């Protein structure tokens, strides 16, 4: 059953000027007519295509298609969609890796949106330094502009030690150099750029260097994945929002001794899974987030 949402449902994020709202994956409603200077995009993350583990997700092969159908059912077409990494589940076999990437690409080709952007996760790219992933999706770090917002996609996974590396940091600095300090900037990445929980490998070794480069810019927001749950954090004025997974949820940072995935709950199937809609109000600027659960 469709769950409607509108701007009145937004939960304001303190200090962000943004908002979060949720809707059902089985068929969520879109927003009432978009206003000028606003746009809407969708973030999906950590789909782990190829994962097998019935105790964690007995519908591993069905969750991504359900998410695709749910995105296609949104009343308002997003301007674009971004996948923030771990498109596939890791495998040591290069042929199997490519097979999973091909299957993933085929499934998401059914998204009824013209522009879909992709980032790699460590499951996709760390074992071959992104070689197979790039064959399917092209460069793993890039930037683009959309309706006045500058988007930057960073690759903090092709190095298995979770480094952006000097070359990419130099590229980032040069990419931003032409921008006004007040320019709205959205950074997309897989791992958190800040030290969320290094004990659980939830960090980027040289993420601080990227944050230092971003810090002079006054309107920066980071969207990332990796931790399989919604999480919001500020480093000074820079907001960091992680997205839910579409395969299995992970526990809250530091909430238990080990980072053990949360088992499937038959009484609440797809609990903790979902995707996000982000409404950008460019003039403020601000971002409205939508967290979508998964339903049978």
């Amino acid at each position, binding site marked *: 059953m469709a769950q409607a949402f509108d701007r009145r449902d937004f939960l304001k994020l303190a200090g962000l000027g943004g908002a979060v709202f949720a809707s059902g994956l089985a068929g969520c409603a879109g927003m009432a007519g978009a206003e000028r200077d606003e746009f809407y995009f969708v973030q999906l993350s950590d789909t782990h295509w190829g994962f097998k583990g019935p105790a964690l997700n007995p519908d591993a092969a069905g969750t991504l298609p359900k998410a695709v159908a749910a995105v296609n059912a949104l009343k308002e077409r997003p301007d674009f969609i971004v996948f923030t990494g771990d498109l596939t*589940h*890791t495998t040591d076999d290069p042929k199997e890796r490519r097979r999973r990437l091909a299957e993933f690409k085929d499934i998401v080709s059914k998204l009824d949106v013209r522009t879909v952007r992709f980032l790699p996760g460590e499951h996709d790219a760390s074992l071959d330094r992104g070689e197979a992933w790039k064959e399917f999706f092209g460069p793993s770090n890039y930037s683009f502009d959309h309706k006045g917002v500058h988007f930057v996609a960073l690759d903090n996974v092709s190095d*298995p*030690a*979770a480094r952006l590396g000097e070359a990419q940091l130099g590229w980032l600095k040069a990419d931003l150099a032409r921008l006004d300090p007040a320019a709205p900037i959205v950074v997309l990445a897989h791992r958190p750029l800040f030290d969320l929980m290094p*004990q*659980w490998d939830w960090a980027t070794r040289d993420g601080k260097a990227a944050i230092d480069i971003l810090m002079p810019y006054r309107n920066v927001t980071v969207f990332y994945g990796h931790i399989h749950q919604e999480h919001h954090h500020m480093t000074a004025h820079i907001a960091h929002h992680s997205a839910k997974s579409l395969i299995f949820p992970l526990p809250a940072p530091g909430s238990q*001794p080990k980072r053990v995935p949360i088992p499937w709950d038959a009484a609440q199937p797809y609990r903790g899974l979902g995707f996000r809609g982000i409404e950008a109000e460019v003039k403020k600027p601000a971002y409205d987030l939508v967290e979508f659960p998964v339903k049978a």
Partner: protein
Amino acid sequence: MNRRRLLLAAALGGLVGLAGLSRAEERVIRIVAKKFEFNPSEITLKKGEPVVLELTSEDVTMGFAASDLNVDVEIPPGKVTVVRLVPDKEGTFGFHCDVFCGDGHEDMGGRIVVVAA
């Protein structure tokens, strides 16, 4: 481990946490990493006791990160990576592989138990 071997290991690997200690006092603990485990996966140290960790990998480059003890090194195969440390607090501290090495990487870890001297 004699002084010559330690220096060789240090040259091959890296030195972390040098504290100006007499090497004769250091206990050597060898830890072998392979997909997706450390052996041993639990070591017990004494607070204030200088130790040398000799880390090796049997297959691919691994990581050894114990952030509570300010240790974070990579372990390339084919060489000994040396970590010298003096635990300054008691407790149980986790360590994990922080170089992605495949399916099972997320479960690759262990713990360091530091007891009173």
